[in-house]
């Protein structure tokens, strides 16, 4: 008899489970050694809680799983752990002295188009470091991230590092009006540089400024790319330089500065990052600073965190083995 399961979900059998458990076990050990305490939150949250996190703007936002409880309240399956932990910190640690170091191993749910490494139910291993401002907090998160990937045995990985506010700051600096600005940001979010060039050309700026707007999001490489900002978006560039200066060498050598990096979640404020490996065509995980999210829950504290998708890390590890 065949009894189907919902699209985008799957069963895990012992061989795979053993390997997944080895990865998540290594991650939790690293988290613990770094002083992070493991927490769990309900898979179901009130829709209003996730709405505070502005996750509706995410591609998964349209695909949130919603249901009603017996009171008629709208519940959602969590689409990540950052927002639930922000709620948890504001509620359970309302007066605790920061910094707070929390970690988790939990499933999250997004109604995405199911494909390799992108199921609708996926396992995330991650940390949230609350009350640690930039740049030290960011450096700590990046260091723990590398420690986890090293402990899992991944070799060829790199970390793309950018700033969520950088491009907006560029647009602010040039006083771009609301409407063309929205069109430009749309082209950027859909990774369409042909469209970006078209929209920027339509602004009628002088050639040098137009080149800056089309070129900056395509800059990626060593710390020298920051120099190409020519003092524009200075705050974001300073932030990235500050992080870079404090990184241990073994972390710094993994970093690719990426001035076009965008994360789909709405709550990021400063440094953002993504993990890449040559053995996998999609990012293995990512994170960044969300200095304003805790404030929306009534406990304004700067924070940074990351999540790795365990299934993707597993695929990348197997891919590296085969090379």
């Amino acid at each position, binding site marked *: 008899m065949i009894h189907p399961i919902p699209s985008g979900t799957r069963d895990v059998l012992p061989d795979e489970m053993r390997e997944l458990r080895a990865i998540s076990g290594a991650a939790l050990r690293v988290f613990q050694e770094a002083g992070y305490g493991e927490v769990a939150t309900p898979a179901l949250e009130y829709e209003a809680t996730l709405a505070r996190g502005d996750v509706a703007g995410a591609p998964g936002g349209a695909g949130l799983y919603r249901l009603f409880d017996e009171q008629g309240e709208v519940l959602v399956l969590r689409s990540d752990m950052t927002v639930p932990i922000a709620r948890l910190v504001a509620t359970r640690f309302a007066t605790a002295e920061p910094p707070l170091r929390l970690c988790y191993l939990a499933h999250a749910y997004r109604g995405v*188009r199911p*494909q*390799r490494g992108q199921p609708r139910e996926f396992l995330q291993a991650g940390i949230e470091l609350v009350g640690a401002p930039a740049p030290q907090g960011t450096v700590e998160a990046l260091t723990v991230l590398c420690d986890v990937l090293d402990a899992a045995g991944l070799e060829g990985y*790199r970390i*793309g590092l950018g700033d969520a506010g950088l491009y907006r700051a560029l647009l602010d600096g040039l006083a771009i009006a609301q409407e063309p600005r929205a069109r430009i940001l749309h082209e950027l979010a*859909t*990774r*369409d*540089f*042909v*469209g970006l060039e078209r929209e920027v050309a339509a602004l009628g700026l002088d050639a040098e400024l137009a080149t800056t707007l089309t070129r900056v999001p*395509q800059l*990626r*490489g060593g710390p020298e790319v920051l120099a190409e900002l020519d003092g524009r978006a200075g705050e974001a560039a300073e932030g990235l330089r500050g992080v870079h200066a404090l990184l241990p060498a073994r972390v710094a050598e993994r970093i*690719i500065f*990426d001035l076009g990096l965008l994360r789909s979640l709405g709550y990021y404020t400063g440094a953002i990052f*993504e993990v*890449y*490996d*040559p053995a*996998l*065509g*999609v*990012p293995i995980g990512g994170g960044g600073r969300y200095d304003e999210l805790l404030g929306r829950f009534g406990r304004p504290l700067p924070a940074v965190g990351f999540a790795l998708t365990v299934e993707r890390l597993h695929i990348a590890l197997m891919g590296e083995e085969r090379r």
Partner: protein
Amino acid sequence: VSGLTIAVPRGALFKDTLDRLDAVGIDTAEVRENDRKLLFREAGIVTMRPSDVPTYVEAGAADIGVTGKDVLMEQSERELYELLDLGYGRCTMVLASVAGDDPLAEALRRLGVMRVATKYPRIAARHFEATGRQAEIVEVKGSVELAPLTGLVEGIVDLTATGTTLAENGLVVREEIVACSARLIANPVAHKLKAAAIDALVERLRAL
């Protein structure tokens, strides 16, 4: 040569694409000589139908690729970088119907909805939604021109370069939806990990 795996579309964009690759120093002689072979390790080229290019590039099975804007619009949910308008393969996505009194307009007026056949159901649906008209989209795989001639539909949404096929079947263009051309696309991870190779190739293609 470039250290990149390039997805090259067979069909209408094939020859122009190989010409550009030759011009930037990627030897495509072997690809031109082999009609059946699909994978050319030496040149770093894999060949496939244009609508498969985004699939390979999104998954990272190819680092970069060439395909039409029509394909990219139809598969707009794919996580890809669109790097460059290559300028060739120019054509237009149009709404067409049988010459004479427009059967689309009559269907819309009297039946409230028009039936339209296409290989591009999402581009068509988006166009009618954006222009506030109700349309029933009929997806076909083969010659779309047949559909309005047999009474299956009142009109078609299809790509046309010269309009010859439309004219031969007694169809006329009623609306132009969007102009399309060949685009260079990249896998998001390769775009970071192979940045220097990709940027160098883009620069050389842009300079042609």
